[in-house]
Structures are given as C-alpha cells and as structure tokens.
C-alpha cells in the first residue's frame, strides 16, 4: 500500500502517528465504556496496568504477543508475494498436530530441549503442509487463494474434531484433548528474561517460544529483504509481469511462500500447546489467525512493525482481562469491541490525522526557517 502523503520524519511516522491513533482509539473506546456507566479512566488504568503493571502481567501480554507474532508473520510473508493467506487460522490449528505428536511420542523419555526442535519441525511441517495445497491449487489450477484457505480453515476444524475425539483423546476422558504432556513436553518459562529487569513472572505462561518468535521475525526480515528468494517473492508481489520478465517462476514462489506462511502459522501452536496447556485442546487457536491479519497489516507487513503490533494485541487481551476482573460491568464482549475500535482507528483510519500532523510539521518547518532568516538578517 502506498503512502499517499508527504514524508514525515521517521519518529513522527512510526512513533507519533501510531501513538495519536492509539490515543484516539482509546478515547472512542472510552466513550463506549462511559455508555455502560463506567469510568473510562479507570478502565484505561486497568488496561495499561493490567498489561504492564507487574512482571506477571507483562508475562501474559508477551505470551499472547508470541502467538500473534507468529500468525502476523505468516500473513505478512504471504502478503509480500501478493498472496492473501486468510488461512493462518487453520494452518496454526493443523500445526498443533506436529507439536502434539512430537510431545506425545517423546515427552516421557526426552528432555524438553530435545523435544522442542522436533516439535518446531513438526509444527512448521504440518502448517506448511496445510498451506501447500491452497498454494499448489492457486499456482497450478488458478483457484483463488482466499476461497481455498477459507475452505481449508473449515476442513481443518473438522479434521481436528475427529482427531481429538477419536484418535488423540485418552479413552474415558471427557475433554476432547490429548493427555497432558510430561516434563519433556513442557517448555521452560522465560522467568530469567523478566528477572533481568527485576520483574517476577509469577504464573504467566510466558515461555521460550517467544524467543523463537523473535528469531522467526528476524528470519522473516532476512528472508524478505536479504535473500534471493525474498527478492523474487517481492518482485512477484509487486508486479507479476516483471517477475515473468526476470525469469521468476510464479508457481514455485507461490507454493514455497504459502508453505513458509503456513509453517510460521503452524509454529504458533508451540506457544499454547507446549508453553501453556501442555496438551492440545479443541480450538486452541481461538481466532489468532484472524488477529494475525490485523497484526500484519497494522505492522505494515514488516517484522519491526509486527512485533509492536502483536504486543499491542497482547496488551488488549491481557489488559482486557484485567478490566473484566476489576470492573464486573465490563464483560469480555466489551473487550472485543475495544479491540475492534483499536483495529479501526489505529489500523484502518491510520491516515486520519496524518494530514493535520503533516501540516503542523510543514508550518513549523516554515516558521523555524523564517525565524532563522530573520535572525540572519
């Protein structure tokens, strides 16, 4: 998406404008809070304090952020090749199979650091597999990726219900989920990371897959901007005709990019399954794939934007829960509204204040130039 407005200094572009947008989003959300007769300032306090006020809260925020980094990256990678992968949800869901299989197989005999690599490979492989078919169908048969990935989301949920009720569920257990993994299937928490900052992680499920997410973000950056393949996929994303001219195979790029995208989505499963629940449950993705679309777009499909966007959503989830705890009149549905408003104002309406800010900068620039002149004279 092009940026139709005059260039602003970087700090304004990437700092001030998003900040203003966020503030406005929260102001409007505040109105909604006011509407149900609650104090919006109090809600805002709980939102921010609930997300960052304590080590434990930060841990939760970052736990959610981990999930969204993966799905956001997944969507973003596909975007760069001009593909709209709306199927990260299903790919993450299927990715869970890879994690579960690795854990169920080895958790009793091996330490986590041996199971983890296998689970990573498993999750990425299953996620990639689930994205392969839509990619292949688009490349070879011209099936529109948006439809096929929507369909594959539904197919994934059917498959998972089958697996979790008929295959992976221990007999006699009521819940459609695998058994609980033992030590080998449990990722260590990142308590040490927070303790560097003198924070106590408490019971937050903030775990080592966060580091994997950061690594993945860096990997995606390298892939897109520093590899030959990334160059090729960007070429295709911007101009398929130029790609053909340059001898870039659309088929190959489409399939591989979809698999990378699916693999990233699949790795999301590590966080809730190995990092939090230590089992795979029905519907563990819980919409993270769709949030990933918003995260990717708000992060402008750049890892450096996706990480803060993911943290923002982590904050909405965790801070939102705190509001619901502290202010019983504000239910979880209210939190959904607030999330929507943030997506609207900080995402879709991100340009609303740009002209005004741009003008402010321009007039400020002129004035200071004029001031310099008068001084000179």
């Amino acid at each position, binding site marked *: 998406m092009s940026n139709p407005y005059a260039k602003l200094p970087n700090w304004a572009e990437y700092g001030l404008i998003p900040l203003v947008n966020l503030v406005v989003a929260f102001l409007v959300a505040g109105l909604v809070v006011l509407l149900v007769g609650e104090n919006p300032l109090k809600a805002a306090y709980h939102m921010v304090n609930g997300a960052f006020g304590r080590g434990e809260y930060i841990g939760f925020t970052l736990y959610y952020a981990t999930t969204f980094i993966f799905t956001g990256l997944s969507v973003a990678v596909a975007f760069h090749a001009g593909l709209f992968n709306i199927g990260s949800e299903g790919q993450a869901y299927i990715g869970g199979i890879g994690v579960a299989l690795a854990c169920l197989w080895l958790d009793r005999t091996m330490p986590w650091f041996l199971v983890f690599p296998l689970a990573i490979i498993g999750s990425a492989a299953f996620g990639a597999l689930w994205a392969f078919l839509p990619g292949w169908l688009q490349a070879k048969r011209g099936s529109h990726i948006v*439809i096929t990935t929507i369909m*594959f989301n539904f*197919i994934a949920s*059917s498959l998972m219900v089958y697996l979790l009720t008929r295959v992976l569920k221990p007999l006699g257990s009521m819940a459609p989920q695998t058994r609980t993994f033992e030590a080998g299937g449990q990722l260590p928490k990142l308590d040490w990371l927070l303790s560097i900052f003198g924070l106590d992680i408490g019971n937050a499920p903030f775990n080592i897959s966060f580091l994997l997410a950061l690594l993945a973000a860096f990997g995606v950056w390298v892939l897109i901007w520093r590899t030959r393949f990334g160059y090729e996929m960007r070429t295709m994303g911007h101009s398929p005709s130029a790609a053909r001219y340059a001898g870039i195979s659309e088929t190959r790029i489409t399939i591989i990019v979809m698999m990378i995208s699916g693999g990233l989505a699949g790795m999301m499963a590590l966080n809730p399954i190995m990092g939090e629940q230590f089992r795979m449950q029905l519907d563990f993705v819980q919409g993270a794939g769709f949030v990933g679309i918003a995260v990717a777009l708000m992060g402008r499909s750049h890892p450096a934007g996706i990480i803060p966007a993911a943290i923002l959503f982590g904050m909405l989830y965790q801070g939102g829960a705190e509001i619901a705890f502290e202010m019983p009149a504000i239910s979880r*549905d209210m939190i959904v*509204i607030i*999330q*929507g408003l943030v997506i609207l104002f900080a995402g879709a309406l991100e340009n609303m204040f740009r002209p005004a800010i741009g003008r402010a900068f321009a007039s400020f620039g002129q004035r200071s130039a004029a001031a310099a002149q008068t001084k000179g004279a």
Partner: protein
Amino acid sequence: MDFFHTIIALLESTIRVSVPLIFAALAGLFTERAGVFDIGLEGKMLGAAFAAGAVAAVTGSVFAGLLAAILISVLLSLVHGYASITQRGSQIVSGVAINFVVAGSTVILGEAWFRQGGRTPALSGDARFQTWNLPFADAVKDVPIFGPIYSNLLSGHFLLTYLAFALVPISWWILYRTRFGLRLRAVGENPGAVDTAGISVIWLRYRAVICCGILCGFAGAYLSLAMSAGFVKGMTAGKGYIALAALIFAKWRPLNIMLACLIFGFLDALAIRLQGNPLPLIGQVPVQLMQALPYILTVILLAGFIGKAIPPKAGGIPYVKER
C-alpha cells in the same frame, strides 16, 4: 418416489440455506465491483440480524425490524466507506475491525436491552416473516412430479426468499443496464477514467457501499426474522466468509453468484442429510468427514472447473489522485 421426495427436500433446504448467502454475496458484488473489498460482510450481516431481531421484538413489526436491519447495516457500511474511501485506509483492516466491533456490541446491547444473554426475545406472529404460498399450491399438491415441485419447492417460502432470487436479475440489470451500474463497474476497474469523465469517484463508491449495506441488511433480517425467530449471538456463524468465497467463486458476476450460492447451499444440505446415514459403497463414515464435505467439494470444484477469477482491477486499492 422416495428418492424424488428426498431430492425435493434437499433442494428446498438448498434454497433456504442459500438465501442469506445470495444476499450477502450480492452485497459484496456491489462494493467489490466498485473497487472496495469487503471482508466485513459477516459483521454487517450480524449487526443487521441483531437490529432486526431487537426492533421486531420491541415493535412487534417485522417490517420495522427489516428497516432497522438495513439502517444498521448501511451505517456499518458507511463506517467501512469512511475508512476505506475517504480515509484511504486498508479495506481489509477496516472489514476486520467492523467484524470485531459488531461481534462485541450485539451481545452487549442485546444483554443491556433484553437481559436474555445477548439474545433477543423469541418472535412470533407479525414480528416474524411468514411463509408465502403461491396460488393453487394446495390444489396441485398431489399432482405427481409437478405437484411437489410447485407446492413444496417453489411455494411456501418467505417473501425475502423470493426477493433474494429476484435480486439476482435485478442486480444484473442494475450493473449492466443502468448508468449507475456502468459507472460502478468502471470505478472498480479504473477510477481515473471515472474521475476524468466528471463523475465523483468518492460519491460513487459510497453509493456502492450503501447498496452493500442494504443487501447485508436483508441477509441479516432473513437470518433473525425468517430462518429463526430472533437473534442469537454470533448467529451468522461464518456465513459472511462463505458469501465472500461464493463471490470470488462466481467471478464477481450476479448470475454466477446465484449458482455459487446454490451450490454451497446444496452441498451444505447434502452434508446435513448424509450425516449419520451410511454412504453407498463406503458405509458409515465419521460425522466430521460429512461436515467437511461441502468445503472439500468446493475446493475440488474450484480446482477442476472454475479457472482463474480475476478481481476488479482497482479492487482493494484506495483511489489516490495526488500523492
């Protein structure tokens, strides 16, 4: 005869299930043909279903409900329009945002007004659409073959059902035979051409978005006032996404849309019908396979027969004149 009866029943079900899809996909047709992509069909439909249920419950009038549905849905469309046309924001993000906001607020408002957990009170009588019988439906009921087709399959649907099917040729006519349609299709292909022809791109796109709102209003009202008798939270259950898929499947053409929606509806009806019944040759299969069947078959159809769908050229791209 039994088989025939089953087919009739399946097709009846197909019609019922495809109506909201047709409304929503036609809604998408109008905006997307004008170059504004809309992933927020789901949210608009949900908002409309809620407004319809709520207002019909309060006023006891189904038409008041319908009107409210259209109003709310148009309002949401205008939000989408403001974000993506006036503010030139990302159309996808705006659509996602609307889905979120509606999902949350229908429950909150419903609970605040009716204290039934986000549901609206059950409707009956005038607060709900009644089915219509075509003339002589009863009389010809027992005529072999024709009887069931006429009095079961064609007769006995809601006003909105007939409207949905009528809207297919009407939409076609609007798009291909009126000035508005010509301009609307043009603005989705090359807004520059429209602009230099002295037509306002922005106003045109707003009108397209409003059309989308109206049609989503029908879709939502159909769900809560015809198919069901009241609103239940999240009752669209992904139909907006299916409608979007149908729209693409249909390559953004009205008649194809009807076919695509009927196919989706039929597959759905078939999957319901087959659940629990053994398949010939294969025998009993897991329920989940049956439930996935419509989606699997869609993918197969798509891969086998449909070919490339080329979206409106200017779709998804905000119109920027001066950079």
